[in-house]
């Protein structure tokens, strides 16, 4: 999966959580939770959805690497390279 494809998947998952999420002015290098109406439960929804779709087990200590859209993509890229 390419970086762009991973980014699209993440935005699709977030849009499924919050259909009113506005990605137009999203800064990919700023924390997602500062820009979107996401709380800790929503964040766990993202982790669960990745687990369901790709059987990804993301350890809790690695959650900080999912803070921004760019860091998410970078974290997921090697894990999804064969998808």
């Amino acid at each position, binding site marked *: 999966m390419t970086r762009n494809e991973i980014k699209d998947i993440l935005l699709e998952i977030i849009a499924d959580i919050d259909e009113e999420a506005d990605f137009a002015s999203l800064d990919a290098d700023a924390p997602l939770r500062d820009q979107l109406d996401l709380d800790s*439960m929503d964040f*766990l929804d993202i982790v669960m959805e990745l687990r369901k779709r790709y059987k990804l087990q993301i350890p809790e200590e690695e959650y900080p690497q999912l803070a921004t859209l760019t860091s998410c993509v970078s974290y997921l890229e090697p894990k999804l390279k064969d998808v």
Partner: protein
Amino acid sequence: MSEHTFTQRIVITGVGLTAPGSSNLTEFRANLLAGISGISTIDLRYMGVHPAGLCQFEETRYRKKRENKRGTRAGCIGVYCANEALVDAGIDFSTYDRAATGVYIGLTEHGTVETENEVYNISQYDYNVDYWTHHHNPRTVLNNPAGEISMNLQLTGPHYSIGAACAAGNAALIQGVQMLRLGEVELALCGGVSECVGSFGIFASFQAQGALAAHSEPARASRPFDRDRNGIVISEGGCVFVLERLDRALARNAAIYGEITGYAMNSDARDFVLPYGPRQQQCMEAALKKAGRMPADITIINAHATGTKQGDVEECKAIRAVFSDCPATWINNTKSVIGHAMGAAGVLELAGNLPAFTDHLVHPTINLDNLDPDCTLPNLVTNTPVELERVDTILNNSFGMLGINSAVIVERCVVC
């Protein structure tokens, strides 16, 4: 009329509801008077198609779709009903304090639907609990529906559930009355909700008990007192009342639906599921005593009867024992129209009868084609409404499993 002072007299000033076939009191009353059943069918996992009462209401009128998705169906129903009740009562919290507002919601059960859904979910992943949702606990804690209401309306007073099987709606009303009289709160949102139609286990359990209604025409499946009944039609639904003290209601010129003057709850203390008429009789007598009323003072009795042989017959025995010489007392049943809304049943059924204070009509019991001779009651209103000169008092029965009984008396509010 109540012997309490105005500060201790508790009145209903707002009603919000959703029932099978209606999403407000006006529609609900019209359906009840016209005898239009709200029952359709549901196709449930493992169970197949069964008669059921399903609610259609504007789920996003007061809460975003994402919040409905995060919460429960019971919470969604509760939020809708609570907001509708406040709008109906004309309360915008300019005269009431959100910190002094209590939310008391009656539940027959809660968490069954969510647990079944989650077990099914992990069954798709070889029962690996890593796929069990983090939403499970906040969705299934027993204060969930009341808590969702408090969050939605930013109410910082107490909120909790009243677990009282199918007497829960009445029990929540009683809780609200007591808390207002104690001065613990100055405004109470009381009622009941049910999401039971989402649970195959609840259907399966009634079926195993021989108490699940079946009929080729769903609208005719709920038939309390009828010789050919064969059980309960399970419904979802909700109803929330705004309760406040009479002096506060008068001070803000609120429209008053009625005054709660009497109530009682007691326990059979004898069987998990079988009802017991003599204890129901004592419960009604205790409610009458608390209201300072004689049986003949009651204009309408709304029966709990669910459409099971033993339940219907036991309640009829109890009613006959208390109201043996009451020619001006009329009896009806709301479940025949909307099925059994479980935790919401008591309050929905009371709400459906409240307009009788102003339209003087007693809504009918429908689907009563062949009266069970063991359910003979004087003045049982059947298939068409009865118009009276006036309606002064309503006694609302609600009983439940484990032998829990409740009766609430509401009167046309007379201020003097």
